């Protein structure tokens, strides 16, 4: 079925078209949800809520831009609302406590690269993880993130900086990326 046929079918509340849309986009969207969620069950709940919004808000799609992008934005907003609703941000921790996270790391299965990166992101504290997901992967600006999470734009920036540093640490520790070589300090060598 073409994308236009799916959209037309969904506008007519046709279950076959809705199923086709779901089959086509749900794998990618579940991956999005999983990066925001604490576990797979939460991710599936987010996905479910997101697709219900997609089907019920289909008439608002203006055919401007990619259809997948439109769905993705709905799913991301649904994830954020889910986290707010369930007060998932309350267990936020700061960078000082990041070392404790390595205990959890042992439970993360070692699978293919993309999945490994996702699992590393999921090790981050909720606030860091959310900002990192929104900024680095989903492409939202810090202003938009601030509006979405009800935080200052500067807070979003600082959270992102810390999140990125923590993620790098985790990725290096798990040998997913190499530790960048430090620049040779000629002054120190000469001293």
């Amino acid at each position, binding site marked *: 079925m073409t994308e236009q046929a799916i959209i037309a079918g969904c506008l007519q*509340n046709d279950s076959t078209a809705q199923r*086709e849309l779901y089959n086509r986009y*749900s794998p990618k969207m579940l991956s999005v949800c999983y990066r925001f969620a604490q576990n797979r069950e939460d991710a599936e709940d987010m996905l479910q809520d997101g697709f219900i919004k997609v089907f019920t808000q289909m008439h608002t799609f203006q055919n401007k831009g990619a259809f997948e992008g439109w769905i993705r934005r709905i799913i991301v907003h649904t994830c954020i609302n889910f986290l707010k609703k369930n007060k998932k941000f309350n267990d936020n921790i700061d960078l000082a406590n990041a070392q404790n996270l390595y205990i959890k790391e042992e439970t993360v299965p070692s699978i293919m690269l993309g999945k490994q990166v996702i699992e590393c992101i999921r090790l981050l504290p909720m606030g860091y993880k959310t900002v990192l997901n929104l900024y680095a992967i989903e492409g939202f600006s810090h202003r938009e993130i601030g509006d979405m999470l009800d935080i200052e734009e500067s807070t979003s920036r600082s959270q992102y900086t810390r999140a*990125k540093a923590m993620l790098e640490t985790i990725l290096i520790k798990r040998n997913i990326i190499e530790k960048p070589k430090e620049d040779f300090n000629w002054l120190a060598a000469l001293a």
Partner: protein
Amino acid sequence: MEQRLREELIDEKMYPSEQVWENIRTEIHGNTAWPALSFTGLFLIIILTIFTVYNYPPKKIIDNPNYSAAQNKALIDRKENRNLTDNTKPMVMEEDLRSQMDPNHYTNKAFEKIKDSATVTAVVVVENKTILTNNLIAIKSHIDIEPNTSPIKNNKSIIAYQLTDATNNQNLTNSKDGNTYSNHSADLSMNSLSKDLLKSIKNKVKTKNTDSATTASLNPENENPVEDSYLKDFGYEAVKNKKQLSRWAIQYYFTPSVSYRKLADDEIRLNYMPSVTTSSITNVPILSANSQPTSINTTVRHTPALGIELGSNILYTLTPIFKLKTGLQFNIREYFIDASQSFGIATIAFVQNNRLDSVTMFSTLGNNINGINSTKINTKLYQISIPIGFQLDLIQGKKLGISASASIQPTFTLNKNVYMLSTDYKFYTNGADFFRKWNFNTSADLNITYKIGDLKWSVGPQIRYQHLPTYTDIYPIKEYRWDYGLKIGVTAPINK
């Protein structure tokens, strides 16, 4: 780093469980209404309607306490009168009249009907003065008009009926019109009229049959009218003992059965594949006749499983050997598909508006061609059917017999536990969206029957065939199902 993360993760996929879609669909389209309650309600209404019509009109007057009291009093009086050895007392057989005549219809017209019927030539009804007089006159005139003809034409019986002794002061209430009729006014002339009538009948009987035992049986000392040989001579006993054969019967049955299926996709392979080029075969996942020379049935495997049918039918006898039947039936049909645990996208081609299109579905079940990671898919379905058909009693012995029956069964499936094969034969996926909820089945069976009392037990083989494919017409692989079963049933007459 952001760029790298985005490239790494933007197209990452994970596959949700089937339950997520079920929840979404339920949220958007609502729960499928469970129709079993409606069916059961409809069935009960039909049964109640049949019984109501069958038993109409109700015998109100018999339930009337005044009537019952009058009856009891009349019985006592009759016994007392018999002890007085009054040979001229009219015979009282209200039970017989009740079986012949509805109390609400004690009219001249009804009376005439009974009088002319095959079993009763004359009836004397004492309910009120008018009817009594008219009827007696009618009977009397009947006898008098044909003096040379015996009133016992064709060995028909004569039943004389007196609701109450006309000499007693017994009130009766006719519940139909609400009027109270009193036998107080039924004076001796009435009684003498009754006596005259009975005498007249007796005389004629005597001339017809000179058997002394017959005349002796008129003696009211004989307490049991059934044993009265006088009545025997007039076929009374036959009337009394003969059960009315009901045309209606009810049947209960169950049929353990095994389900089989056959797949067919020749139509789409032959009609659509020649126009599809080799390069596009991967996009339109239908195996061509050339690439798949053997039948689809050789590439899939399934194991029959035991199901059951439970049902009840109402039978109506049209002729001694031909009965119509209808009822309600609950079916459980089941078979297992041999599949494998594998992970992939099932692509389903479908035909819509004479065009070939396709949808993709996530699947964790592969077609088990190689027997690796094998698993079984259970396809248990619950169905409600309304069988409408006939039964032929081919051979009817005293006890043993042979009968055959057939029915067409509109069938509604209550659940959608179905898995359809992707059109490239590689995967199985949930087929709920393509499932046909309404279908038609035909059932035929041949039974050996055995009578035990009023019950007729039957056992015999049955075949049941599903006419329409399991999935809607847009799905190109047609699945037809049939069941082989052993039907065990019992049929009981519905007595009047």
